């Protein structure tokens, strides 16, 4: 059996997070009643004209900058012509030869190894509608709500060599677009979809093999499965001496296989030409700089900062940056309490549990970073004990006041009054005479028991070290 290297490229379609569609004022939203978010413009009624939503352009540029792209100063809008019932104008307004963004690169992290995937181009385009096939027999229904929803298409170079790399690339692109605030990248809602181009070649071969395109993959899992299936299928064919034909395939999620959609001969001739209804986009250096300024610090920079400056380990750092809101919370928290590890630890161990279990939406954290930092500080400085700190966090998530206030109201504050501790210690010593005598007789283990009794009476509110000191002094006197 010969060995083959997979060569994989991806086209990612990401929905931009604008309020309105790309060429009309219809609202962009997910779900809802069919054909309620469309108008004469996005359904292509005669005489209507597309008017480019300028936010689409700035969001696409912002996404491009997040993916390290160059921005074309002059960009043109084109028509891609094909007949399909979900495409009301029978052409899609897209970009052909002068896209908004070109020549980017995205760093992916494959365990020990880091790798860059080059981004060939990013262009803007309108989404098509949706066909519903099952509602009535022998007919399909068209829902135009999605028509004209703004998309960016991100075309990578064929730089990926495995399904895992493709997955890492999609996750990184999605993360960067989320950081840039230009797309939600929710695959389950269709706001991120991918087409995969894949070919196999012998390690020594200079030329790429014949590529096959797999269309419309809408989950990370199906991207991975489709690629793995396709590698296997093509390997078998090549080993059997068969030729790969250039074609478009679809992935059947249920059966886990790809099947042919159309061959190269049946490929559409899209007859691209300049969209006469939309004037070309001119972008100045100032425009680009203004957009660049709006970008927050991105994933790779944050990782560097966390590991190199803050001394966090790589695993925790990656957990923190996986979610921008969490990473933002961390950054803000350490600005008021600069105990990098303690804050990170509290987020990773305690706070994220609520996020992961779906009890907390990281976009709607009900307390400020300052309040959170305060809580970590209280725990670290043993103003409250660790268990009570966790309890306070839970109450803060339920919307209760500041950590200080909660600790006070709940009686969680450590008691540092030596008099009170001494009183408790005296009480315990006089009550557990047998244990005290045992201890004094050399059963050192009994000290723990006496400590425990004191702590119990103090209800976790006293500093254990203080209890220990006072108890030791007391017992020493009795010796």
């Amino acid at each position, binding site marked *: 059996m010969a060995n083959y290297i997979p060569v994989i490229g991806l086209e990612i379609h990401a929905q931009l997070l604008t309020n309105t569609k790309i060429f009309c004022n219809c609202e962009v939203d997910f779900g809802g009643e069919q054909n309620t978010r469309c108008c*004469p413009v996005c*359904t*292509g*009624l*005669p*005489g*209507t*004209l*597309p*008017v*480019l939503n300028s936010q689409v352009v700035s969001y696409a540029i912002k996404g491009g900058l997040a993916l390290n792209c160059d921005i074309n100063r002059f960009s043109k809008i084109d*028509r891609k*012509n094909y*007949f399909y*019932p979900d495409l*009301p*104008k*029978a*052409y899609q307004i897209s970009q052909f030869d002068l896209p908004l963004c070109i020549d980017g690169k995205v760093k992916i992290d494959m365990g020990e190894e880091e790798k860059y995937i080059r981004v060939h181009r990013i262009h803007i385009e309108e989404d098509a509608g949706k066909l519903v096939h099952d509602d009535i027999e022998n007919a*399909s229904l*068209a829902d135009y709500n999605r028509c004209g929803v703004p998309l960016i298409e991100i075309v990578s170079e064929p730089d990926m060599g495995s399904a895992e790399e493709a997955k890492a690339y999609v996750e990184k692109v999605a993360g960067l677009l989320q950081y840039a605030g230009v797309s939600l990248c929710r695959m389950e809602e269709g706001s991120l979809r991918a087409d995969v181009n894949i070919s196999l070649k012998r390690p020594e071969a200079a030329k790429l093999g014949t590529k096959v395109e797999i269309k419309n993959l809408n989950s990370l899992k199906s991207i991975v499965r489709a690629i793995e299936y396709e590698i296997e299928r093509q390997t078998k064919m090549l080993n059997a001496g068969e030729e790969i034909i250039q074609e478009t395939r679809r992935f059947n999620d249920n059966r886990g296989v790809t099947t042919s959609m159309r061959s190269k001969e049946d490929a559409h*001739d899209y*007859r*691209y*030409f300049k969209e*006469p*209804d*939309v*004037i070309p986009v001119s972008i100045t250096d100032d425009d680009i700089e203004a957009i660049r300024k709006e970008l927050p610090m991105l994933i790779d920079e944050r990782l560097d900062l966390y590991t190199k400056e803050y001394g966090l380990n790589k695993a925790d750092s990656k957990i923190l940056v996986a979610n921008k809101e969490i990473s933002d919370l961390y950054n803000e928290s350490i600005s008021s309490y600069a105990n990098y590890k303690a804050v990170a630890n509290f987020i990773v161990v305690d706070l994220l549990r609520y996020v992961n279990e779906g009890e907390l939406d990281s976009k709607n954290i009900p307390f400020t970073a300052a309040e959170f930092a305060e809580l970590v500080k209280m725990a670290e400085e043993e103003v409250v004990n660790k268990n009570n700190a966790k309890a306070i966090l839970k109450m803060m998530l339920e919307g209760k006041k500041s950590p200080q206030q909660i600790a006070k109201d709940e009686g969680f504050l450590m008691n540092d009054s030596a008099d009170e501790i001494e009183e408790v210690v005296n009480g315990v010593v006089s009550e557990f005479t047998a244990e005290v005598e045992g201890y004094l007789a050399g059963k050192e283990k009994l000290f723990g028991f006496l400590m425990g009794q004191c702590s119990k009476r103090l209800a976790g509110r006293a500093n254990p070290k203080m209890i220990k000191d006072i108890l030791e002094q007391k017992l020493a006197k009795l010796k």
Partner: protein
Amino acid sequence: MELCDKSILELRQMLDQKEISSSELTKYYLDRINKIDGQINSYITVCEEEALKTAENADNRIAKGEASALTGIPISIKDNMCTEGIRTTCGSKMLGNFVPPYNATAVSKLLAEDAVILGKVSMDEFAMGGSTQTSYYKKTTNPYDKARVPGGSSGGSAASVAAKLSAASLGSDTGGSIRQPAAFCGITGMKPTYGAVSRFGLVAFASSFDQIGPLAHSAKDCAGILNVISGHDVNDGTSERQKIDFSSKLGKDIKGLKLALPKEFFGDGIDESVKSAVLKAAAEYEKMGAKIVEVSMPSLKYAIAAYYLIASAEASSNLARYDGIKFGYCTPDAKTYDERITRTRKEGFGEEVKRRILLGTYALSSGYYDAYYKKALYVQQKIKAEYKGIFDTCDAIITPTAPTTAYKIGEIEGDPVKMYLADICTVTVNIAGLPALSTTCGYDNAGMPIGMSVVGKAFDDATVLQVADAFETSFKRINPKL
């Protein structure tokens, strides 16, 4: 002088001085349409009820002293401009049942002044043609000779104005569709600078050339209408922000203006009667103190090919939406999507429309794109450059509007190449996006009107109107006999 012979400015005065009400004026025109339109077939839809209602509003407005330039003036609209609640057919079976839920911006602007829309007038199907004989509904005839074509594609507009069945009309011009019928019907028609009037609501033919403009009895009336319908529109990204004052130069002396005559427009293929009438008009301008300069436009020989490639390419895409799914004609009993769309388009479109869709699809197809569409865009740049060269030294250009006067129905419509070549005098203006106007400068032996075109720099529409108006002031037109 009959009421219908009056200009918009004269009607304005009569309305404002309460010599006549808009309701009376509207009834008068509706009555004329009733009596006369049977001879020329210009109206596809007469909007009697709506017109009378608007007239009433106009009268109220006039009574309050709040009339604007077109308040109460009866106007017809080419049937490719969307009118809310009123069928808009585009001269095609395909849109026979299409009632738009919105107005074209130009129409909205007229209605905002309570201009009275008498009805929707005929046109070549999807504005493709120069004879109005490809209309699925009314094959309009020429008021000067009912055996002849009125020109096209805005033939219904031109004929309705020439026959005085409307005080003015809105037409659209993609390759001469306002100017050529204005010439054939002996009136004035203007295509303003591309982008001056919003295209929103104008059913698209070739988006980069399409432009709405007026057909009326004079350059002055055209200026008045353009002042109302022009201006930037948020619904049209290609509409210009620059506001043009169309009447700013009307009546100003043309002494010293340099008028260019490109020699290629006076060569073979242009009728002698047309040539001599236009040259005679040029001599008139000279008498008025203008300077006549002979210039050259070598790329004119490529203009027809370039125009038909670009316009048809855009049309093939613009007309792809007519698939019988969402609006318009839909073939009955189709079993599959493919069958439905194929039969709908086969049955819904006429021959000329299909010819251009095929031509345009071919021109854009891979393997042919470079040889046809791309070369046509190159010719477009050449033509623009040549116009720029002429306008570096001249103020306006004078050419014939069409190589001939109105021809007999059936004479050349069967020969598409001959039909296309007849657009030679008008298409370069659309290719370059310039303002141009046709006015009547004489009559041939058969008594058919001869059109002369005035072409100006982009956004210098005012000079075009000034030059045309100067000629019109001293030229006496002959009314058609109906």
